[in-house]
Structures are given as C-alpha cells and as structure tokens.
C-alpha cells in the first residue's frame, strides 16, 4: 500500500509539469522612468520597452532594459547619459533579478491590488547591488500590473558625477516601474 502512494506521487508530479508554464506573465513594453532632482537641474527620462517576466508560482520577477532606450527631454542630456554616465556602448543592458518575498500572500487568481515586497539584484553599469522595494501587483481581467518605486545611489554603480556639475546632479535617483503583463504562452 505504501508503495502505491509513491507511485501516485510520481504520476502526480508528471501530470503537473506541463501546468507550470501557465503561471508566467510577461511584457516587452513595460515602462521605467527615473528622476534625479539636483539643486539646479532635474534630470528625468522614460523608457517604454522594458522586458519583464514574472513567475507567479515561485514569485520570481525579472526585468531587462536597453540603456539606449531611455528618452530625455534634452538631446544633449541623452547623449551625455549614454556617453559619459552609464556608458551604454560598454554596458548596453540593465537587469533586475529578484523575488517577491511575500508571494504566498498574493492570490493571482483573484482580482485586486496586492502589496508585493521585492528583493533582488540590480545590475547596472557593470555593477550588481542588492535592491529592495515595496511595490504593488494589480490583478485585473486576467492581466497583472507590477509597479514599484525605489531609490538607488549612482555612486553604488560606479556612475561618477564630475566635480564641476556635482551641485547640479543628485547622486540619488528615484526609479519608477510600471509593467502591465499578459500570460506567457510557450
């Protein structure tokens, strides 16, 4: 009798395997924007083609952005951002790989707004740092929207502000993430 239990478990595991893929959501048109408020100048930029994948089962969430895709209000700012600050040719992509730590508290099958605590590693300008943020997940019409808001320090990512413009540019950058996602079909 005991043996049959394990046979059953084995069959169950096999049966469940294909179902795993249905738990993932993704987007390739997510939005990320950042604002850096200096004493003299406010620098902000927007990105409209962020890739984000969320595995609702494990709570894993990952983002990728191409640095060149950030759009600024001033052409020269965009040039300097790519050339002098984040060095987009050398480090074309920024990624975040992390987990929703309270994933069990989110019921992806029920519409609503859930708080999601995200913890993971942000890689930017060739540097990887731990990042933590309190965001939300909105479940509606079979879609998910992940949003979050957090601060990073440029100095953590080896992005140097030259002494001449130290007062103009803030070392703290506020990042806002807004990614509406659809089910990922394999």
């Amino acid at each position: 009798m005991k043996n049959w239990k394990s046979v059953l478990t084995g069959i169950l595991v096999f049966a469940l395997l294909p179902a795993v893929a249905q738990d993932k959501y993704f987007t390739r048109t997510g939005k990320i924007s950042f604002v850096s408020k200096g004493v003299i100048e406010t620098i902000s930029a927007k990105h409209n083609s962020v890739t984000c994948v969320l595995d609702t089962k494990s709570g894993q969430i990952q983002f990728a952005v191409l640095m060149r895709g950030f759009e600024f209000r001033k052409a020269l700012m965009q040039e300097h951002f790519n050339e002098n600050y984040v060095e987009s040719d050398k480090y074309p992509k920024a990624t975040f790989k992390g987990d929703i730590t309270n994933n069990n508290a989110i019921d992806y099958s029920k519409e609503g707004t859930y708080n999601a605590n995200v913890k993971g590693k942000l890689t930017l300008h060739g540097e990887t740092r731990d990042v933590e943020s309190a965001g939300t997940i909105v479940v509606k019409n079979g879609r998910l929207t992940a949003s979050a808001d957090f601060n990073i320090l440029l100095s953590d990512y080896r992005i140097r502000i030259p002494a001449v413009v130290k007062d103009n540019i803030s070392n703290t950058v506020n990042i806002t993430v807004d990614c509406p996602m659809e089910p990922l079909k394999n």
Partner: protein
Amino acid sequence: MKKSLSLWLFIINLSLAGDKLLAQEPDLLKLAGEDKPARTHVTNAFKSTRVINGQSMEFLGKGVLDVRFLHRFGTINSGANNFFGLDQATTRIGLDYGLGKSLMIGIGRSGVGKELDGFIKYRPVWQSNDARGVPFSVVLVAGMTLGTAPWAFPDRKNYFHSRIGYYHEVIIGHKFTETFSLQLSPILVHRNLVPGANDKNNTFALGIGSRLKITKRTAFVVDYHPILAGRQYGTKDPLSLGFDIETGGHVFQLHVSNSTGMNEKAFITNTTDDFWKGDIRFGFNISRVFTLVKPKEKKVVAP
C-alpha cells in the same frame, strides 16, 4: 518487483525535486525573447559640430540652438609687448540650429572682413553600429559668405556679387572607437572676386579632422586643410591643434592655429602664417546649447 518500481519512482521524484532546486535562478527573461539592441546610429564622433575651424560629422539635436563665440588672437611669437598675441583679437559670433536629426543651419559674423556667413548642413548617410548598417557617415555642407567691409578700391566700378563667396563640402567620417574618430572632407571654395589677376576663383582643399578622447569629457583634436589646387598667392595650409573640454551644455575648444579665419572661405583662402615657422596663435571656441523645442511625448498605445 513492486518495491523496485517504487524505488525507481522515488529516484525520479528526487531528481525532479533536484531539478527544481537547480533551477532556482532560471533566466525568465529568455522566455520573453531575446532583447536585441535596436539599430542605433553612432553619436559623439566629435564633441562639437566643428572639429576646430571646419565642420565635423556631428549634428545638433532637433530643436537645439547652439550659440558659438569664436576668438582668434595674434601670433604668439609677436612678443611680450603684444602679450604674446592676446592684445589682438578677432571674433566670430554665430548661431546654429538643428532643424532635424540630420539637418542644421547656421549663421555667423566675423570681425575680419566684416563678413557674414551662413550654411546648411545635411547628413544623407549616418554611420550605424549595426553590422548591416553603413559603416561611415556622409555629410554635405553648402555655405555662403558676404563681406560687408568698405570696398578696397572705391574708385573703380564695384559689383555687389563681388562680395560673395561660396563653399561646398563633402564630409566622410568614421568613428573607429569610443576614443578615435577620423573624417576626410574635400572642400571647394569659390570667390566671385579674388585680389590678384592671377589668383584663381576656385580653391580646392582636403580637410582632415580627427579626435582622440583623453578622458570622458576632454579630447585632443586636429584640424588640417591642405590646399590641393587654386591656392591663393602667399597663403599656407591651415592647421589647428586643440583640446575639447565639455562641461554639461558647454563645449570649450582651446587650440593653437596658424589661421585667423573663422569661416571656410576665410581660413582656406586667407591663412598667411606658417605653422611650422612658429606663426601660431591661440584661439578658442565656446559653444553653449539651448534646447528650444523639446521633443514631444511619445504616445504609448496600451497593448
């Protein structure tokens, strides 16, 4: 028999669980498809739209106004009494404006010859960093100069068109690496009136411009225009060596040169000093950009 079957299933279970453990950090992003960098054009081959005197393969952004102050001093070897040339100064004040990503216009006025100049600059081919893209940029420049100084010979019959000169230039440039850029720019200068009976109206020169970045915000630049044909009698090839310093919206170009001319007609047909004999002068260009028209917000249609 039953026992061995259950053992076998147990092992499979374990290995599956192990699989799950190993897959703790799967690359979920791969599932969404690889992010290929979009084909992008090469920017910042030069810090400014000018190498030093001559036009560079670089453009202003759309809606950007560039206010340019150019200064050229006297020759350094004119001695301490002339403060090594700093006593004399000539200027050109100019405004450039970016009409599009690859189209800009500019006007300016130089003190030398009380000369007005204007140009239009267009980039039909833009270097791309994609393997399938074009590996170099081609830029066309057409300009006109108008001298407004009193006639040198007021007694003879003078025509208005005698005040006018033209220049046409093709720039072929390539940004080799982040630090090194090189461009060649054949240029034709036409003057409606030349000073001497034996002087040619057309002068051909080959511009050679290069940049070598020293740090992220400073660069060493060379601007050389050997004259190939139609040399104005007694003139030399203009050569300038300088440093570009970039600070936010400003670009400072500090240089030494044998030319005083600050438009194409002037420095190609009017450079009388010999760089190699030490007739060099200090000069600088200051460029300050202002974003007049900000790009419109792109509307994103919800998926």
